[in-house]
C-alpha cells in the first residue's frame, strides 16, 4: 500500500543526519542543559502569566463590595416594592450599560427595608415583581417568591438574595458589588433573618 506521507519529510538534497548513529557528545550535553534552562525560564514566565489570568480568583469575596446608593427614600414608598438602580462600585470604562444594576427595594414600614437582588437564586434570571399578587416571578424556569423573598414555588434552591442596607440621610445605601450566586452571596443575611438597620 502506498502511503501518502512517505515523501513529506524527506528532503530531496540533504541526508537526514539522524539516520547515522551518534554517540554521547558535548553538544548533546549542551542541548540538554539548554532545554533545562528553557524549562526554568518557562516556569518563571508562568508566574506572571498565571497571576494575570487568575487575578480575579485571588481577590477575597467580600472585597468587591462597597456601600452604594440605590436612590432617595421617597422613591420607595412604605408598604411597596419598587425597582432600584445602582452603579456597581467596581468596573471598567467599557462596561457600558452592564454596570448599572437593578434590585428590588421593599419598604416595609419606613424603618425596615428589604433589598433583593434582581437575580433568581435558580439561574440568575431577572425576577419581576407583581404588586397585585405580591409575588416575584421568574420568566426562565418558573421560580416564584413571596414578598419577603421566600420561595413560593418552582425550582429555586433558596430565597432571593438580599443586600445589607443602611439609611444615610435621605438615601438608601446597599452593600453591593458582585453578582450573587450560591457561592458569592449578596449579603450574609438570608430571607427571614435580621438585616442590619441604618
Amino acid at each position: 500500500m502506498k502511503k501518502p506521507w512517505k515523501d513529506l519529510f524527506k528532503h530531496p538534497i540533504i541526508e537526514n543526519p539522524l539516520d547515522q548513529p551518534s554517540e554521547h557528545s558535548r553538544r548533546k550535553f549542551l542541548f540538554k542543559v539548554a532545554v533545562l534552562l528553557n524549562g526554568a525560564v518557562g516556569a518563571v514566565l508562568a508566574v506572571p502569566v498565571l497571576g494575570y489570568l487568575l487575578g480575579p480568583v485571588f481577590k477575597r469575596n467580600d472585597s468587591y463590595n462597597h456601600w452604594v446608593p440605590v436612590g432617595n427614600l421617597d422613591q420607595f414608598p412604605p408598604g411597596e416594592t419598587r425597582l432600584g438602580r445602582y452603579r456597581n462600585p467596581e468596573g471598567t470604562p467599557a462596561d457600558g450599560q452592564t454596570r448599572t444594576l437593578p434590585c428590588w427595594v421593599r419598604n416595609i414600614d419606613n424603618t425596615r427595608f428589604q433589598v433583593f437582588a434582581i437575580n433568581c437564586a435558580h439561574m440568575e434570571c431577572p425576577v419581576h415583581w407583581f404588586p397585585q399578587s405580591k409575588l416575584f416571578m421568574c420568566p426562565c424556569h418558573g421560580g416564584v417568591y413571596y414578598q419577603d423573598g421566600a420561595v413560593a414555588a418552582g425550582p429555586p434552591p433558596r430565597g432571593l438574595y438580599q443586600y445589607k442596607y443602611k439609611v444615610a440621610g435621605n438615601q438608601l445605601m446597599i452593600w453591593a458589588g458582585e453578582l450573587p450566586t450560591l457561592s458569592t452571596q449578596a449579603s450574609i443575611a438570608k430571607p427571614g433573618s435580621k438585616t442590619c438597620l441604618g
Partner: protein
Amino acid sequence: MSGIKQKSLKLYQWFDRRLGLVKPITEAAEHPIPKSSASWWYVFGSAAAMIFGLQIVTGILLALIYTPTAQHAWTSLIFINHNIPLGWFIRALHGWGSDFMVAIVIIHMTQVFMFGSYKYPRELTWIVGVFLLLMTLGMAFTGQVLRFDQDAYWGLGIGASIMGRVPWIGGELVHLMLGGPIIGATTFSRFFALHVFVIPGILLALVAVHVWMVLYLGISEWPMPGRLVRRSTYVKEYEAEIHQDGVPFVPDAAWKDVTFSAAIILAIMACAFFFGPIGPSGPPDPTIIQTVPKPDLPFLWVYAVFALAPPALETPLLLITPIVVICAMLGLPLYAGEGEKHWSRRPVAVLMVSVIAVSLSILTSLGQHPPWSPVMDAWSGDAVQPKYLKGRTPLQRQGALVFQQMQCRNCHALGGLGGQRGPDLDMVATRLSESELIRQVLQGGGNMPAYGNALSPPQVTALVSFLETLNGNERPAQNDVHRLMQSESAQSPGHSSDESQ
C-alpha cells in the same frame, strides 16, 4: 501556445523544487479507499470542515466592523444589520452556519458510531472527534455571548450560576468566568478571546490531527454483519480489501463530498436569505427586566433540563452528568475497540442513539415553547373570553377580574390562552369543590404559591365563585354535597342549583 505551456511548466517546477508539497498532496488525494466507502454516508466530516471554513471567512468579515467591547458590541451589530451593505446577510450566514455546523458534527458523530468506525485502529480519531464536538459547542456558546444582547447577558448569568454550584471553589470559578465581580466588560472580552483566538486555534489544530489520522489509517470500510474487527488481523484484511477493491479517494469518493458540501453551503445561504440574521434581541441592559431570556437552539435542551429536573437533584445532575457523558464518549472506543461493526448486530448502540435522539428532540421542542415558565404578560394581555362571562352574576364577573388582576392567568390557561405552568382551568369546577378551591387559593401547594396574604376575603369569595362556573358548560360541577353523597352511596348525584350555567 506551446511557449506559454512550457513557461508555466517551468514555473511550476520552480515552485515544486522549493516547496516539495505537490507530490505528497497528490498522493494523499489519490490514496486508495475501499470501494464501499465511496458512499453518500461518508460525506458529513468533509461538510463539517467546509462549514468551519465558511465560519472562518464570515467571522473575519464580521470582525472588520464588529466592535468587541461590552459597551459597543450590541450597537455595532445593529449597525452591521442596517448600515453596512449586505451586513445582515454575512451575519445571517455566520449565525445559520453555526447551527448547521453543530448539526452536521452531531450527524457525523452518529454515523461514525452507528457504522462502528471508531473501532480499532481508529480509537484516537474518535477521541479527537469528541474534543472537536466539544470545541464546536464551545464556539456556539461563546458566539451567542458575542451577540451581547439580553439573551447573552442572562445566559452568562446561567453560566455563573452553574459555576457557583461547584462545591468549595464555586466562588473562585464564578470570578474566573466573569473576570471580575459582575457580568461586564471583562466578562465580554474573555469570551471574545475564547471565540476568536483560543477555540478556533484548538479547532484548527485538532481538525489537522483528525484529517491526518483519517489519511494515515485509511477510511473505514462499509461494515458487514458478522465481519468482526480483531486487532491481530484487521490491518491485513483492510489492506487486502483496498488492494483488491480499492478506488482513489479523488475523484471516486470526493465528488460526493464536494457535492454534499456545496448543497449544505447552499442550504445555509438559503436559510440566511429567507430567515435573516439571528438576533440581536434587546440591548444588554440589566435594568430592562421585561425580558424572557432563552438560549440558542443547540442549548435549548439544557434549558429544558434545568426546568424539569427535580430541584434536589439539580446541582449533582448539572455537575456530574457532563463529566460522565464526556468520559463515556472518550472511553467508548477503548471499551469497545473490537468486534462487530454493523448496526444490525449492535442493538444496544441502536437503542442508545434512538433514545438520545428522541430525548434531545423532545427537550429542544419543549425549550422552544417552555410550558414551565409563567407567561409574564398573560394577566394583562390575554382577555377572559366572553363565553366565560355571559350570564354570570356580578360576583362571578368580579371573580374573573380578580383572576386576571392577581396574575393567575400567568400560570393557568383559560380557553387555551395563558401560562401552562399550572393546569388549565377550563374544567376546574369539575375537579375541585368550593372548599377545595378555597383551600388551594389560600394555601397553595402542588407548586402553586399561597395567596392567603395577597387576597382579601371578598376577593377570595369572588374568585372562587368565578372558578366554580368553569365546568365546561356540560358536566356537573364538583361540590361538597356530591363528595359526601359519592362517599355514602355509589349513586350519581343530580345537578345542584348553583352550577347550572
